[in-house]
């Protein structure tokens, strides 16, 4: 490469190639994604965050919460369970279907329905079992469970997908887990008072917590005629001196509203899961792709 023109042409081509590949194509693929339908329902997802929560997202951003907390649940795979909902009318045929499926159950398999027939099987076996049982007149359904350590920790029922972030600007994914994942903190901890107290004195709420207190989000002020209804109820050495109260600022309230709005607990087409326990009278699913919530 002797000439400057050639050099800059090479640089331009390399930059443009990666620009097209990692900026233009993702923009076409996910930047234009529309809101999705929640599986088994008619709600659009994700909904924009309500006003106060939207303000809270900016508090989360301004204070760099994303430097310690991720907002993405990792999923390793999916496991399927086959549930027998009802045996139908021809019990003999259902029992022969059991034989076909190589199921040996000690007690009478047709009492105490609904019951789990197969646990932790792959999709082809689950599909085959469901079809065989339904051909025999029984009603069977498949439960889909996401797997992985994040799911086991209770950080979410499914892995995060691109659609979860459609309403967020900035997306605040986080790059470290010095604190727990917050993708579903609104589901795990729906109590605003808990959150306020936790922001004020984390180690008093969560034992051995290493999170720094965010006292600058609170205001200590003199009680006027009546105490503020928002004032934190604090005991022991946290309590302010008599005549004073600790009141959350608008920023603290907005941040808590944002944390409560962090929920990715709905099944989507690209991220299916079934409710953990079958409903009392389960309905067989029409297709295997559509899990029953």
């Amino acid at each position: 490469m002797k000439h400057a023109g050639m050099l800059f042409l090479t640089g331009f081509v390399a930059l443009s190639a990666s620009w097209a590949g990692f900026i233009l194509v993702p923009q076409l693929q996910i930047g234009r994604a529309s809101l999705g339908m929640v599986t088994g329902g008619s709600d659009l997802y994700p909904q924009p965050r309500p006003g106060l929560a939207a303000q809270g997202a900016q508090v989360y951003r301004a204070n760099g919460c994303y430097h310690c907390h991720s907002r993405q649940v990792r999923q390793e795979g999916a496991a399927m369970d086959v549930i027998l909902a009802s045996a139908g009318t021809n019990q003999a045929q259902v029992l022969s279907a059991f034989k076909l499926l190589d199921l040996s159950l000690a007690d009478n398999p047709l009492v105490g329905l609904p019951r789990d027939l197969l646990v932790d099987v792959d999709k082809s076996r689950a599909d085959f079992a469901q079809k065989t049982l339904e051909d025999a007149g029984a009603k069977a359904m498949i439960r889909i469970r996401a797997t992985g350590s994040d799911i086991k920790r209770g950080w979410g029922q499914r892995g995060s997908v691109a659609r979860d972030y459609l309403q967020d600007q900035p997306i605040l994914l986080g790059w470290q887990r010095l604190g727990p994942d917050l993708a579903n903190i609104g589901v795990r901890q729906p109590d605003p008072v808990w959150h306020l107290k936790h922001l004020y004195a984390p180690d008093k709420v969560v034992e051995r917590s290493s999170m720094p207190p965010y006292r600058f989000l609170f205001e200590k002020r003199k009680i006027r005629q009546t105490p503020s209804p928002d004032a934190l109820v604090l005991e022991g050495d946290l309590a302010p001196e008599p005549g004073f109260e600790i009141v959350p600022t608008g920023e603290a309230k907005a941040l808590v509203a944002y944390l409560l709005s962090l929920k990715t607990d709905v099944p989507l087409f690209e991220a299916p899961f079934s409710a953990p326990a079958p409903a009392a009278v389960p309905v067989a699913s029409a297709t295997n792709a559509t899990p029953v919530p």
Partner: protein
Amino acid sequence: MSPSLQSAPSAPESAADLPATGIDRSCRWPLLGLYPGAAFWLALSAVVYLVASMSFHAPALFADYAWLSYGRMAPVANHLLLYGFCIPAGWAAALWILARLGRTPLAQPALVILGAKAWNLGILVGTIGLLAGDASGFEHFEFPLYAGWLLLLASVLVGVSGLNTIRCRAVPELHPAQWFAGLSLLWFPWIYATAMGLLQLWPVRGMAQGAVHGWALAQLQVVLLALFGIAVGFYFFPVLKQKALPSRHLALFALITLILCGPWTGVPLQAPVPAWMTAISRVMSVCLLMPMLAVLLNLRSLCPVGSAPGMEPSRCLRFGIRAWVLWTVLVVVLNSTALWKTAALTLVQPALFQWLVQGFGTMVLLGAIYLILPRIAGASLPFPALARIHFWLASIGLVLVVVPLLVGGFQQGTRLADARIPFVDVAAGTLMPIRVASMGQLLLILGHLLLPVNVLVLVLRLVRAQIRQVIDEPGGVPAASEGPA
């Protein structure tokens, strides 16, 4: 600096038409516009890193001060390091290399001086913005828009001067170091404009932001730093060894593989993006082996050794290139095995960042500063011993920062993967590595504080000499330099 180094016919500098001193003089004030700011921001970043880590020693220490909280201090430290030091120091080295190898004085030096002012103002405004809570929310691209405009303007000013220096070159054939230096000037405005535009000005929707962010991150850390580092390596290794660069073809291979593969490596592997993106990112990360091996093969026979005066900064260069090799090997191992699952979302990430930016970028550019400063000043460093101490403090400090974070990060990842271990225990396990890293940070502070001492005293001496000359011979052109101290 030893006179033999300056006068000996070294490969890229041999048979200079224009005396090197004239070229160096043209670079003096532009580069001394960039270097003092860079030196100051580097020292400040080391201090801010320590302040940020205090939140892990005593969580309640800054509970009443928003601007001192970890979430604001950490980005300030990262930005001062990356934008405050690495980029202006890289440009300074690139401009000087372009002028030296083109055997032409630096074109439009006033633009560089102006650019340096705009850049430092941008860093100052951006830092205040971060402290005030105006972070954009995208790691390493967190400066608010109003600071971004200044940075963009500065990068264009510096870039114009550099590209004109290439245009005015007296040697038609470009040396490989000029390829890397020239492209490094072109790179930043494009990536920063893209990041500013698509993340803040007209933000794209949802995870498309994650894609833009990943692209810009890789461009900034993997490509831009490597362009700086390899330019410095390809220039100084042959000069110090007084041999020619063995192969232009290998250098071309390194350049093309770097700029073709590097930009695709930034998507975090666990991110909720379409699977093809993470797959490409993994493959391209493994491909980083190609530029690394090509550079290594080219520089293998040129490793400058010896402790002759003037050779000491080559320690920084050697450390830097080795750090880059090690970083590449780590990234390749992580991406070609299942280890990335353990490393994702843990302290391994800041460890890799520190190792790349401080171990490779900062070290190579420090070596370049200590080699370039005496040349543009026409005088030896005021305190050469401090430069030596700086290297030892910085390298030992850096190892003490990175190794605990790396080990702690893998432990954290292993524990995160085991859902039976409660999260408070996982989080508590990260405290000790961070606290040990603070010890290394102390050494880094001590080391990095020595650079501004050398730079400022040198600038003061030059200013004094200039004033004396103006007084002695009014109307006369100031002489080239004062003699070595």
